[in-house]
């Protein structure tokens, strides 16, 4: 459960950008979160509700853009989406497993909506 640390980073980044733009309040924080980033949706929202108090994001909501895992097969030089819940990435062409992740580990504040 490292969502508290992550939420604190989210709020730091969001407040810094909002202040730079002279905003009074943050309405929405748009996040990009990879499916394999280790972040739990309910924990993230729970912690966010508690941590946002007293910040510019006090009344903000989170909008999470979940990024599916995408792997890469070196042998076939092909990228493919991983739909296996256990992260087993089998190349659709040669059926060999791959450990490479091209996508799915993102943790990013993508945008804000401010007033």
């Amino acid at each position, binding site marked *: *459960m*490292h969502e508290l640390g992550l939420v604190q980073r989210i709020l730091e980044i969001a407040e810094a950008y909002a202040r730079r733009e002279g905003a009074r309040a943050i309405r929405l924080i748009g996040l990009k979160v990879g499916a394999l980033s280790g972040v739990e949706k309910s924990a993230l929202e729970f912690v966010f509700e508690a941590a946002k108090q007293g910040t510019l994001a006090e009344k903000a909501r989170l909008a999470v853009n979940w990024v599916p895992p995408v792997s890469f097969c070196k042998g076939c030089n092909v990228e493919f989406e991983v739909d296996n819940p*256990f*992260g*087993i990435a089998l190349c659709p062409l040669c059926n060999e497993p791959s*450990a490479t992740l091209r996508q799915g580990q993102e*943790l*990013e504040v993508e945008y*804000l909506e401010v*007033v």
Partner: protein
Amino acid sequence: MAEVKEIAIGLSVLAENAEERGRRIHVEKGLMDLNNQYAADNRKRLGAAKVKALNVLSSPGSGKTTLLSRTLLELGDELKMAVIVGDLATDNDAQRLRVGGATAVQIQTGTFCHLEAVMVARALEALNLEALDLLFIENVGNLVCPAAYDLGENAKVVLFSTTEGEDKPLKYPRIFKEASLVLVTKCDVAEVLGFDRSLALENLRLVTPQARVLEVSAKSGAGMQDWYRYLFELLGRGVP
């Protein structure tokens, strides 16, 4: 005239709605950027001192401390080693790791369930890097959170004990995918536990085909020579 008025009202309604929705600011800032900067600094410092660092990861109780204390004892004459060890509380592990002439620096992470690069940066201050060959960073026992934090290591070593069940790699794929080496530990009790070795190895192959896999027991000593060979190879040295 009436038409113009209507348009004006329409615009003010639009303006109010825009105020309600707020304006959009592009950010695109990674939550790990700051950690990654510290990790890059650590990597530079370790590289300048010619120290190789391993980030040692596993669930609680997989045998990280037992593996490392035996390693420090048995290789103490050949290599200059130190350990940075992270735990939520207590310095019991650091005490267990002060063997074979090794220095052990404890980081009490408090509520943190993982080590971050900035914590390692502070711990590096307590070590004489110039006098070291090899640094083990024993992470907090956890297979989720530590996966996201680069510490500036040369490689990640993930332990997976026979007491944990064959499906560990399937439950925590991310951390296994990043491993250079997977150590299947507690091999001495595998048989008693009915541990299905071939299933475990197949699960590892499916999740992390690039990782080297070694089977060891820090208690009986089985497989430890393979692990030492890996360490000497990492250091670019021949096995003595």
